[in-house]
């Protein structure tokens, strides 16, 4: 049965494992008994280690003494099972055996004798190299795999350079139009706002009683784009004349941080000459127009996120 672990539990388990492992592999040989005891205790008590070991220990039952007798009769390399799971479980049982059994010393002596090593310390070093270290490498990999399952989904928050974040009063999108096109422009306004942009529309952004010219100028000052809608209602070059001039003024002032975008609907007259040096697109419907508009904007939106009312 698989148990779910929190990232904190996993981090702590792996930290303890690394300490126990490194102590057992690298501390003074005279202290190996203590470190082996502590490591086996970790394997028996830590839930992450148990999840790795328990299924295998249930599947493979070893008679260590029997293995010891067979192995003792062979000179040269120790013989391990072919299955990596079985070999892994056997290595653990050998470590446990040395730790728990009075005959642990016999196992260590046998491993030394097989290689003509008769000094006790060197036999222990052989046991560390031949039995413990491969076990540590394998259990480290297996613990790591379980740990990965406990990791949070790959989600990154973004760190945006300050230079790329416009201030609140320079990233509006000025929607330039005549009253007759209001329903069309209102649709753009609503969609831009829904997505998180700051559109500027006279009726929504002008306060009652304010001067039209002053409000328009302020609207342009606070914008990063001006969008002109050329529809079948377009009359002549003077149509929206003042707003075109304001837009060109802003473009000269702000350069790349200001875009003049003209959306020309089917059946409309040609784009006014003053606007032709800038971005313009022939569009057949609002979706087309919106695509061209967002493509040409000098600002973009941030990473995707769940809406506030979806995530409690």
């Amino acid at each position: 049965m698989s148990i779910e672990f929190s990232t904190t539990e996993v981090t702590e388990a792996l930290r303890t494992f690394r300490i126990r492992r490194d102590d057992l592999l690298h501390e003074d040989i005279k202290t190996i008994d203590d470190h082996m005891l502590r490591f086996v205790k970790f394997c028996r008590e830590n839930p992450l280690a148990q999840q790795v070991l328990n299924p295998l220990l249930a599947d493979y039952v070893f008679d260590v003494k029997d293995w010891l007798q067979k192995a003792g009769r062979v000179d040269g390399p120790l013989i391990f099972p072919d299955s990596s799971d079985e070999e892994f479980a056997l290595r653990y049982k050998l470590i446990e055996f040395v730790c728990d059994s009075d005959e642990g010393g016999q196992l260590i002596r046998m491993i030394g004798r097989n290689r003509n090593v008769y000094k006790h310390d060197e036999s222990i070093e052989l046991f560390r190299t031949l039995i413990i270290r491969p076990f540590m490498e394998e259990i480290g990999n297996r613990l790591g795999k379980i740990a990965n399952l406990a990791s949070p989904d790959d989600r990154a928050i973004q760190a945006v350079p300050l230079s790329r974040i416009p201030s609140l009063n320079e990233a509006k999108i000025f929607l330039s139009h005549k009253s007759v096109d209001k329903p069309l422009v209102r649709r753009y306004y609503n969609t831009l706002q829904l997505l998180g942009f700051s559109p500027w529309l006279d009726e929504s952004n002008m306060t009652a009683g304010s001067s039209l010219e002053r409000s328009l100028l302020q609207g342009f000052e606070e914008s990063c784009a001006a969008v002109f809608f050329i529809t079948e209602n377009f009359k002549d070059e003077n149509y929206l004349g003042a707003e075109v001039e304001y837009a060109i003024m802003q473009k000269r002032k702000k350069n790349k941080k200001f875009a003049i975008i003209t959306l020309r609907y089917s059946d409309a007259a040609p784009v006014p000459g003053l606007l032709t040096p800038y971005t313009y697109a022939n569009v057949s419907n609002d979706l087309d127009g919106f695509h061209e508009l967002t493509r040409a904007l000098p600002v973009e939106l941030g990473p995707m996120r769940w809406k506030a009312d979806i995530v409690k």
Partner: protein
Amino acid sequence: MATTGFVEDQEDDDSDSVRLSVSISTDQGGFFRRTCPVCGRDFKTEIDPSELQWALAPLVQRITREEIGDSSENENNDENQNELYCPYCCEKILAIDSHTSDTMKYIKSITLREIVLPMMQKIFSPLSNLGNQNTGLVSFSIKYDRGMLSPRPLHGPEPPDMKQIQFICCGKVAKVYEEWHWTKQCVYCGVPVILS
């Protein structure tokens, strides 16, 4: 996830270099844990296997010099100057100084085992053949016991902890503590940033 690389430790004679195979553990996203030497807090940076030699060779060289008692600085130390910016205290730090104590311990053990001890064996082995010498003036005895090397050290496993921050200034990603929300500059290029 283990990342393996080869580190060449240059000795004084350029022709005599040691090739050392090192496996460094990264988390499942390929992030390598570091510790800020100023504030002591951990963070992780992206590391590519091809960068491993570049990242660890200066450290191996430094440890080797320390262990053999050589105080001279390595002339070829451009890599040593690679800088990072701590996501917590904002201090500019040298990448070589930001290895965790675990990594330092691992690299030190492996350097001792693979470079320093063989070097010492090379130095002392001819002397041990001298045995007991009596020149008439001074008697001396040299006993050099080669002994067994301890097992090769292991690195990791690295837990998949911490949250990712993508720095859109350079497109690179780093990891910081889950509860940390105040990173003010890019870990890689130092550009002032704001978390969105």
